[in-house]
């Protein structure tokens, strides 16, 4: 009896395996129709360590097959149920690993009315340069309501694993609404390494969560004459020093504004937090200027930031034009030099925002729009590349679209750019990756992959404030919860003395002993 059962099960298993092994159809028709997929992964350059780029075929048909072929004939194949192609992760990784630096041919076959057709092949170029394993981002709805479900997540680009780093469901409900309440964002890591990291949350008793040398502390950043807590924190590349801006942000929803949501700063200044001294002090504090988005150069010798005339009337917010500035920093004396204008955007009736210095200090990627510093909702916002040697500034066409491009960031090797773009529908930002080669050219951007290719289609949230990460963040949301529950925020000492004012910009410059 046992033998019969064993034999039957072996036959059934074998039959099942034969029946389920897909092959490329033997008979098919060539078609010149364009293949339409979601997401669009055609003719792109990809890192060798990325997870499978699964997609859905949108052309009319019943089922489909996709085959990836390397130059040596090695292939992998996936048959799509409901026209959804999902490659085996194991096969995909092996193929990419074996053929880094080469090109893969992708053939897609679609069955429509009992006939298979073959679309023109397209290519995937596997770059030798890998991409940082992790991406961290915030999920928030495009109305930016702080009482909704907000969280900061770490996404593993190599296998699609998702880890919750912070979640506003931790916090107590507002009893009058039965809703959750707190805002959190502005996470940053020292050189993309979360060993030393920082993020901001605004619940009661909140502040800046600084993880340094394996210890996490809550630092109150509403000290001295600061009107608002810290935002846009940035670690110095090597020192225990965090710079941040202090913005009084206002949000507005217009009735006819194509940008849908508008945000602007009533005032903003730039400060620093010395972790060792536990001291907050101003770097730039001005009356007539608003300074925001500080960012270190890769060597830590300069601090770049955006600066505009201060807004005095709410209806004049479109007159805020930010220039790109920088201020030298001396690591030895911990002192600051005089600010200088690096890119005069206001002179071209434009405004820059969110500068990001490449790890080789050669370029600054930033967004340029007609006005303001909150470009992620501006339809005209595009990503530009400023060459710090030639001072040439041009748009990165491979990343841009007719819709808003916002947050842009570099991988730690400088070979990959990531941008949040609303190109799909003008409202819900998705993340796109682009290869940036040694000649300074960005390649066609492609959407951050997911195991379920329709994941982003079903998600009614924005990807906000993306950052690369090289290693796994050690803490989890529950650790954060416990830290917040168990520790009262540490109030640092505040140093607010202004020593001198820069004649050109009106910036107040403070020297430290």
């Amino acid at each position, binding site marked *: 009896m046992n033998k019969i059962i064993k034999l039957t099960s072996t036959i059934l298993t074998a039959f099942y395996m034969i029946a389920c092994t897909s092959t490329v159809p033997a008979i098919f028709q060539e078609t010149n129709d364009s293949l339409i997929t979601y997401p669009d992964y055609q003719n792109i350059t990809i890192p060798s360590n990325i997870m499978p780029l699964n997609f859905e075929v949108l052309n009319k048909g019943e089922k489909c097959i996709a085959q990836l072929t390397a130059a040596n004939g090695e292939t992998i194949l996936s048959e799509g149920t409901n026209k959804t192609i999902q490659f085996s992760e194991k096969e995909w990784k092996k193929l990419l690993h074996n053929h880094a630096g080469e090109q893969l041919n992708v053939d897609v076959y679609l069955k429509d009315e009992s006939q298979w057709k073959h679309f023109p092949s397209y290519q995937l170029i596997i770059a030798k340069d890998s991409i940082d394993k992790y991406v961290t981002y915030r999920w928030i*709805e*495009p*109305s930016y*309501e702080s*009482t*909704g*479900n907000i969280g900061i997540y770490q996404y593993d680009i190599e296998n699609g694993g998702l880890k919750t780093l912070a*979640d506003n*469901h*931790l916090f*107590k*409900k507002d*009893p*009058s*609404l*039965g*809703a*959750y309440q707190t805002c959190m964002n502005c996470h940053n890591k020292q050189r993309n390494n979360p060993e030393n990291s920082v993020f901001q949350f605004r619940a009661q008793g909140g502040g800046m969560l600084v993880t340094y040398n394996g210890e996490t502390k809550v630092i109150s950043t509403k000290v001295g004459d600061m009107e608002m807590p810290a935002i846009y924190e940035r670690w110095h590349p090597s020192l225990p020093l965090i710079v941040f801006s202090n913005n009084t942000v206002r949000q*507005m*929803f*217009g*009735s*006819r*504004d194509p940008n*849908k949501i508008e945000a602007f700063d009533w005032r903003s200044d730039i400060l620093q937090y010395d972790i060792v001294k536990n001291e907050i002090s101003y770097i730039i504090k001005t009356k007539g200027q608003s300074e925001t988005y500080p960012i270190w150069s890769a060597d830590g010798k300069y601090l770049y930031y955006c600066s505009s005339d201060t807004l005095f009337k709410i209806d004049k917010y479109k007159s805020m034009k930010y220039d790109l500035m920088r201020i030298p920093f001396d690591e030895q004396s911990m002192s600051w030099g005089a600010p200088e204008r690096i890119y005069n955007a206001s002179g071209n009736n434009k405004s820059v925002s969110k500068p990001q210095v490449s790890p080789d200090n050669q370029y600054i990627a930033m967004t340029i729009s007609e006005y303001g510093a909150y470009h992620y909702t501006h339809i005209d916002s595009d990503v530009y590349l400023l060459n710090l040697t030639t001072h040439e500034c041009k748009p990165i066409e491979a990343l841009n679209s007719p819709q808003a491009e916002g947050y842009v960031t570099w991988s730690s090797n400088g070979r990959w750019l990531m941008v949040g773009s609303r190109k*799909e*529908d*003008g*409202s*819900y930002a998705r993340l796109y990756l682009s290869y940036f080669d040694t000649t300074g050219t960005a390649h066609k951007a492609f959407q951050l992959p997911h195991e*379920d290719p*329709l*994941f982003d*289609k*079903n*998600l*009614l949230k924005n990807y906000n404030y993306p950052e690369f990460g090289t290693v796994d963040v050690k803490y989890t*949301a*529950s650790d954060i*919860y*416990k830290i917040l529950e168990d520790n009262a925020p540490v109030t640092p000492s505040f140093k607010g003395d202004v020593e001198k004012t820069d004649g050109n910009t009106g910036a107040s410059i403070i020297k430290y002993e």
Partner: protein
Amino acid sequence: MNKKIISRLSKVIFFIGVVLFLGIYNYDFLYQVGWKNYFLFNSFFTQQTISQSCGVLLYIARFLSLLFHYPLIGAISVAAVLTGMVALHEYLFDKRKSGFSFLPSILLTIVIGCGGWAIYARFEIGTFFALILGTIWCLISYLLYDKFLKGKNMAYVMLIVQLVLLPVLGVFSMLSIVMIAVEEYLEKKKGLLLLCYLLLPLGVAVGEIYVVSHFFYGESFVYALRMPLPDPYFTRMFVCSLCLLCCLIVSPLIKKIEIPVLDTFYRKFPFHSLVLLLCSFVLIYFVSFHETNYRSLMKLSRLCDEMKWREIVEQCKDIAHPTKGINAYRVIAQGNFGKECEKLFDVNMPLSPCSSPYKIEEIVYEADLTFYASFLAASYHQNMDNWVIYGESFRYLKNMTFISLLRGDDELAARYIYLMKQTSFLDDLADEYATYLNNKELLYKKYPICKKIKGNEVLQDVPQNVFANLAEYYLAYNRFNNDNLKRCVLAKLFVKDIKGALNDYLTYVKDKKDLYQYMSEAAVLYATQTNDDTYVKALQVNGNVVNKVVSCLREYYLLQQNKQTDTSELCRKYKGSYVLFYIMDTHKFQSIKE
């Protein structure tokens, strides 16, 4: 009549009673529950819902809540299940047919009836069906134990199954164990099984609390043990749910305990269960949420969905103390559709402020108000804010889709339509909406009012938060045709800017007939307040109107002088006149002494 027939009759009465209570009396509430629900057939939604504590039960419950889209069908389904539950409970615990078996079902009916404003807050709509399903699970578990497993080793398996199902069934898995433990105790089997049944749940509870507090985070995990009970913030529902749990726990006791006096009573009065049932329905009515204005608002919201303007006007007429929300729907129906303009102030308005004690009322009407006032961006954001703050729902998804279509934001609309297609309720509507992508003429043909709404959009960019109500939205119109002008003038009257209204009326409005009644009253009012009779002369106001306005003001003044609060006679006498509307809740106006 024998006991059996009475028992059957009482079940039939219960079924009919629940259908009437939910399907007729709470028709509009169930309609809103249906629209507040959210359920998609996709792996993303499934994963998201199931991953929360008690997620599987809530997933099934949300699916079943789709029935509420057809309130009567929903009510009949709930009534049938609750009646079945009565029969099962009776079979298991109450062979004497004392009427106790109705209690769990009555409590569940009350929980639904207590929904009220909760459905607009961050309330899990699946709770209603989750409680019903959980109760059924407890009864079936007990049935399995009682009939097949009692005294056998399989009872230990049952225990393990219940523990394994804790994340799926939440509190109901523990409750099943407790019910069996009670039964074991009553059977005086103080053996190993009873010990297991008593200690294991306790151990699991302590263990889970330990694990939750040390390794997990967040309310949703902390409350895993009590899911799917409603949040204690919704007090009445929460208390009724606790009563339901208690009722189930004591059920095995009812089966065992014998009280001779009661048995005699049951024999003497076989109709006692019918009487109890009738009393229960009285209890259901009084304990459930039945505020008049809330019920009116639910109805008006539904009528607005169905674009039945005349019915809204009729409905509003009979409301004695309308709230802001009710007035909003009235203004939508009347002010926004010229034909009814002349009746704008013909409503029963109290002389006290029209305010609801429930701030949450705004969630119901605000997005509709801004939509029909042609502030599409504001309406879109209000829907999205509601989605974000109070949870995802079919209503907000549908509204965001429709507004995106109307604004010509087709790519965004396509994203929402893609989601709508994954529901079993909105898929037809999604197909219809898909035909409007890049074809607005088709949309205008199906919904002619939308052409008007789109046409009345303000041209300049105005921040949405500068407006407080529909009337103020109208004041911002800059594209004037005669219809808009009339609305603008009415809006000014509505916010009691009589000089502005008179100027606009005299300068711009071509067809002056429609508004003459109100304007002549406004002219007299203006004259009484400023001693300037320019407008009275310009409009050639009839002496009767002057007398009416003056006498109304004078009577109101006398009432104030005598500190009389009863203004019903005044309201009745001057019903429908603008002067009455004007003096309501106006503190700064000059009363006429002479």
